[in-house]
């Protein structure tokens, strides 16, 4: 199978390339790289005006398998990822059973190999504690050896400071980050949205921004004390961004990610009582969104990750306080990033590629993607100018719980190549 990717703009932060280039791919491997290439008998893919980048990885995805296959499966999740322009995802351990045993890691790896013939690399992130209960350490060494690329109890925080300290120490031996869902539990008890003016108006129980910030402040100190690698999942408040900024200024091993919804939406949207505006951490205020954009621009925020959290239609068809937290995000992430960040001059396309590809790979110590002759093609191709209207009914994900239905976005994935497989939208 021979492909000629013709006339696309290659943007590769690793090599520093930003130029119009043709690429010939034979059986998944890059055979030629140059301008005005011709390749007899190759299928020609015209990519004028499109961007070719190292494959995107979404380091925060809930694939729901095993246990919640009615929400998503590894197959539907990988299809959604490919449609969204991702060649790799990291799946969260809050499955049933949770990923606190190497057998579950293997199960995920086996399913991922079968899904789309292995087009999307699935990197499991394992639980920090047994049963994600926050009490006893999960077998971190076994999990790491089996292939877990990081540890988190996501959905819940590692709340006990002693457990967090030990997790950082132990994970450090295996070069794995501890990824924290930063939330002080008593401060957020019963909370369903951001605490502030909108929650006050609506009479909904609030989750104060301080609940996220006190946990991050504590963890940064523990990371400093232990030397363990610490990563903040779905950062959402202005002060939290500032805490990470300060930690980085002190050269600590601290990084963070933000979701597209947290750099796009505010808690004003909750006024609709639409349960697709309910996620954890909750949508915050305009000031927080602005601070997040500054954090993305100055490099405080390393990664854009979706926190793709599929829930069935009926699960969200309930009273606001009864609805589960979370929204799907794989198929809107790139469009939102281009619309909100590139079009508004927060990030260049090259910086965008860093947040989607280079940085998460660095944080998780995944192999670097090299776009060079002889290397396997691991590429994300997207159109940075096409306009489209989001209609969740057309999502490849099994679930459609998105607040972005009807949004007009600029930028969309065209296709992906990885492991000798391709996917075209």
């Amino acid at each position, binding site marked *: 199978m021979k492909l000629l990717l013709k006339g696309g703009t290659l943007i590769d932060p690793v090599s520093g390339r930003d130029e119009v280039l043709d690429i010939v791919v034979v059986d998944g491997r890059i055979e030629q790289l140059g301008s005005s290439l011709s390749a007899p008998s190759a299928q020609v893919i015209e990519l004028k005006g499109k961007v070719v980048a190292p494959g995107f990885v979404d380091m925060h995805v809930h694939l729901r398998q095993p246990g919640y296959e009615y929400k998503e499966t590894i197959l539907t999740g990988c299809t959604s990822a490919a449609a969204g322009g991702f060649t790799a995802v990291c799946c969260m351990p809050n499955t049933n059973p949770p990923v606190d045993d190497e057998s579950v890691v293997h199960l995920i790896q086996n399913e991922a190999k079968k899904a789309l013939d292995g087009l999307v690399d699935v990197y499991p992130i394992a639980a920090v504690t047994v049963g994600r209960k926050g009490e006893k350490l999960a077998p971190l060494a076994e999990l790491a050896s089996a292939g877990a690329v990081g540890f988190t109890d996501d959905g819940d925080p590692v709340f006990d400071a002693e457990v967090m300290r030990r997790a950082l120490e132990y994970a450090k031996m295996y070069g794995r980050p501890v990824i924290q869902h930063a939330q002080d539990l008593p401060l957020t008890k019963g909370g369903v949205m951001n605490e502030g003016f909108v929650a*006050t*108006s*609506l*009479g909904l129980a609030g989750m104060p921004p301080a609940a996220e910030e006190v946990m991050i402040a504590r963890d940064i100190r523990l990371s400093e004390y232990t030397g363990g690698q610490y990563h903040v999942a779905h950062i959402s408040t202005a002060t939290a961004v500032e805490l990470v900024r300060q930690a980085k200024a002190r050269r600590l091993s601290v990084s963070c990610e933000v979701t597209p919804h947290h750099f796009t939406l505010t808690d004003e949207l909750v006024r609709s*009582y639409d349960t697709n505006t309910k996620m954890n951490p909750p949508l915050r205020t305009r000031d927080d969104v602005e601070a997040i954009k500054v954090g993305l621009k100055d490099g405080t925020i390393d990664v854009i990750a979706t926190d793709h959290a599929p829930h069935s239609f009926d699960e969200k068809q*309930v*009273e606001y*306080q009864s609805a589960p937290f979370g929204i799907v995000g794989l198929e809107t992430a790139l469009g939102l990033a281009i619309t909100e960040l590139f079009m508004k001059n927060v990030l260049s396309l090259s910086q965008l590629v860093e947040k989607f590809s280079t940085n998460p790979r660095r944080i998780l110590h995944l192999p670097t993607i090299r776009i060079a002759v002889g290397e396997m093609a691991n590429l994300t191709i997207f159109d940075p100018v096409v306009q489209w209207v989001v209609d969740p009914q057309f999502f490849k994900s099994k679930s459609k719980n998105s607040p972005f239905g009807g949004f007009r976005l600029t930028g969309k994935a065209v296709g992906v190549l990885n492991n000798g497989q391709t996917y075209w939208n």
Partner: protein
Amino acid sequence: MPLSTRHLLGLDGMKREDIQLILDTAVSFREVLDRPIKKVPPLQGKTIANMFFENSTRTRLSFELAERRLSADVLGFSATGSSVSKGETLKDTARNIEAMKIDMVVMRHSAAGAPHYLAKVIESNVINAGDGGHEHPTQALLDMYTIREKLGRLEGLHVCIIGDISHSRVARSNIYGLKTMGARVSVCGPATMIPREIENLGVEVYHHIDDVLPRIDVLNVLRIQLERDAGRLFPSIREYHNFYGVTRQRLDKAGREITIMHPGPINRDVEISADVADSENSVILQQVLNGVAIRMAVLYLLATKN
């Protein structure tokens, strides 16, 4: 002139003309309640379902009475706990009841926004009889009616709501309604019971009752949830009474005629002392009577709009 809305979900964003129309219409129904025969025919043939997902005595009785006084057919439904814990969703419960051909739903629910959701998934008119800590519009309407009856106007009056503002749907609806009608509104309570950024609703915030009493015309006293809040939102019942209890002595010191209201049920000698509750300036029982008239007005205006 009909109401501009087909549901009564809350007073947040409700037009001044709509509130005015309800208050004015209630005057006629209030007069009906003084007649020897207290039943009138306008809702004959209409069926109203009262869906109470949360315990309520007076609101439920008041709605039922209002419905019967208007000659409507009344369907009762009550369930403790959330619909989810019962295994049937709110949507399914409501659609099942609606399938029996009803015209209106009156709902009390512990979840803020539940009636707003319901209004999207069923055809009937929806009346919010209290949704979590969000709104209790008919309570605020009857409060405004009672103030107007007692003091002749709403515009320019200073009303203070005292108690647990954070969890109070009565407070929110009163704030929205009174602000729309041109009243000045303050809230008073310990900082632990004042929700974040409430000043942005255009109310003044007081933490000391003696600071606010000399400035106000009306004091709306909220019930303290004894079992739930003591030790968490305030240290003890005794301390609450000593610092926030509405007593004769405090009112005398304020040196001002203050109309006393309470949405009930009262904890005597906790948030309000017994002598104040029973005093001449107290309109607590008028509120209860006016509640029937207000609910008749709301039901009538929504039913005849269709």
